[in-house]
């Protein structure tokens, strides 16, 4: 066991874990931030997407040792009251079905729109195709992205 310092959702955290522990399990089992989901464990589906030092990362394949000293934003830290424009867009479009993959999609969308507030449909497709929704909410994700882009440009 080693000790690691992280800034998670703007709070300083010192945690004790084996260095190879994926950030995902640190967030979920140690810090209780369960909005970040386990679904594949191999960086294939995007359900565990978080922002590390301003970049979207699959937290299931990033070890806590490699994440040490980083600034991490999870779905819980995206906004104070769950009212980030992307979250509001997701609500307006009533996107989720089972909902399990949605925090990952929202974090991927957040990463895209932070860098590119006006993405083309192709850019949206390219970035969000890293995430899997098993229920098939994709049409509504597209709609929510259009709403979020529009709100962002107002």
């Amino acid at each position, binding site marked *: 066991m080693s000790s690691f310092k992280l800034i998670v959702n703007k709070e300083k955290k010192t945690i004790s874990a084996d260095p190879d522990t994926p950030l995902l399990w640190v967030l979920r089992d140690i810090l209780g931030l369960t909005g970040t989901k*386990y679904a594949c*464990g191999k960086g294939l589906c995007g359900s565990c997407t978080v922002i590390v030092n301003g970049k979207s990362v699959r937290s299931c394949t990033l070890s806590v040792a490699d994440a040490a000293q980083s600034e991490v934003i999870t779905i819980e830290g995206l*906004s104070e009251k*769950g009212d980030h424009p992307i979250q509001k867009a997701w609500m307006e479009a009533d996107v989720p079905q*089972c909902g399990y993959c949605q925090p990952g999609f929202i974090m991927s969308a957040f990463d895209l729109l932070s860098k590119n507030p006006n993405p083309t449909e192709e850019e949206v497709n390219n970035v969000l195709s890293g*995430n899997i929704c098993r229920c*098939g909410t994709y*049409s*509504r994700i597209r709609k929510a992205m259009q709403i979020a882009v529009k709100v962002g440009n107002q």
Partner: protein
Amino acid sequence: MKNTLGRRNFIKLTASASGALVVGLHFQSCAPKKEPVENFSFVPLIEIDTEGWVTLIAKNPEIGQGVKTALPMILAEELGADWDKVKVVQGDYNKAYEEQWAGGSYAVILNWDLMRTAGAKVRYALIGAASQKMNVPTSELITRKGSVVHKKTEKSIPFGDLVAAASQIALPEEVEFKPMDTYEIVGKPCPQVDLDNIVNGSVQYTIDLKLPDMVYATVLKNPVHKGKVQSFDDSQTRKISGVIDVIPLDNSNYGGRLIGPNSPNFVNGVAVLANSTWAAFKGTEKLEVVWDNSESKKENTQDIFSHYHNQLNTTSVERQDGNIDQARRRAVSQVEHVYELPFLAHVTMEPMNCIVDFSSEMCEVWAPTQNPEALEQGLIKLFGLQPEQIKIHLPRMGGGFGRRYYVDYAMDAAVLSKKMGRPVKLIWTREEDIKHDWYRPASVQRLSAWLDQDGKVIGWRQVLSNASRVTSLGREGNPAGTEIDEYDFPAGFVPNLQFEYGHVLSDVPLGQWRAVGPTATAFAAHSFLNELAIHNKKDHIDFFLEFLGPPRMVPVVGDFKYDTGRLRAVIEKVRENSNWNSPLPEGQGRGFAAHRQAGSFVAEVVTVEVNADNQLKIVRVDAVVDCGIVVNPSGAEAQVEGAILEGLCAALYGEITIEDGATVQSNFHDYRWMRLGEIPEIHVEFIKNDLPPRGLGEPPLPPAAAALANAIYAASGVRIRRLPIGNQLLDI
């Protein structure tokens, strides 16, 4: 419209200690007179507090199908509640709720009358109480947005001020339902109840829960189906920091592979228990297990399919109308083709997991299950518990699709918690989840049709061969029953028709996968009907409408008949919506299929493009659905889109293969799922009518693959008779 419930349940009003009005179901056992009334269990459905807040219990498990929103909407509608003052709470498992499961697209069908009756009885009591207070006849009162309103004067009393008096009102046997033209909640798009907590990440699935003193566990199962554990070396596992224990799971100590008809027990393997999920995952990687595969057939996919093909010639007759031999003799032409479908996995995004606290006499379970009753029965069988010792909570689930109808993973967790004497959260890795699924049965089907001089189909023979779910799950009855059904289309539409079944035994674990049997039979039938239309040089939809004949009630099996007018109507509408007869650019084509399931009618047109390099793109899908009353148009549209994408995705990529008795695929890299960039535009329309609501989660799925294959033919001239499509086009 009046209703009395012909059930063992009856609805009762009571007042809670805090003065709230509580309305729920009392459960009468099958021999009601022998039991004192106080022994009956009571479960709440509606609670109205003195502030007027209405709490509605969502009784059925939520897997993403929207039932946690839809059933409370029906209650709220009939009650006349203000949806903005409604809180929805998921109910725990309780026999008194009845039909508390998710499957077969049945939740709304089975609860429509129950929800309306409960809501209407409470409305009756509230109106009765208001009538006394206002001194006006009940006939002049209605409920609207959380108040009882006097129609003539618009004077109103909020529900909260009526709860005390309402709890004293005697409920009648029969209640009047609200006229549907006065609906304010049902039929209007309603965002799902957990929406805000899903998007802020706070909604808790079972996998997210944590109990005091809880141990984390995972399992390494014998990858070979029907295999066992011979021996294992856990010395390296135990060296990993955080690992607490290693426990073998041997189902022969717990009643074997099946714990009851339709209820698989846990699969043999070795479990690692630890103080974190990661330590448990790492621990299983260090296990050295010698597997005992002496009872395995060591199958591989190629052999399985060759058995299926062979068995097409050794069949039992499952339905026989007229005489296909006479049709064959009379026919001027014959068309015959063979279709193949693969095994499919469910891959719910939330992998199999379960929390069990068996640290005392009580067994408390948090289970992502579509089938809590099977879970209860499993616990009773494995541990000899009494029902009173079992408590089952039903957190929201990250998908179901039929996988969570089986409770094998919950049995894992129960055995481990019992052994540890501590609460256990068991999480399967994605690899275990895919390798130990209960797959959609693969099948081979041979379809033959005989046509007269006018191209009319006078004989139809459909032969399906496979390993059956009935046999795999130890269900009672005919193995053909789950695979080729006497109700399957086109039964009832061809005078000489024969369905046959060839039964093969296999080790591959089989279960229900969204929309079940028709995912195979409807693919074959509607692909074949397209081939018949082409044989006749006719437009597919024209040919299909002729095949259906004029609108009428068609008897299918016994007294069961349905209205082909409703089927025709969805077809005619989808023809219009998809601009079926308009020209398409070079390389594009449209395909059609229609389907009836769970009482609903669906017609779909898929438009595809196959480019010069034979690359396939699905451009657009049009769907028209008649499911009767649409309770929640937002949730309903989502179900239709989801089912269509699931059908298309499985057709494109879905395939589980078997080698040496084990499943080859292990994660999303080799069990591919559709991504955002691949999906077509989808246009869904519902037929508006006042008929009772019918199923929606499944009916739109089966026609999607056939419509896709038919579109590929229209675009490229290539006929897909084997799924998945995979690289078949590129390999030409």
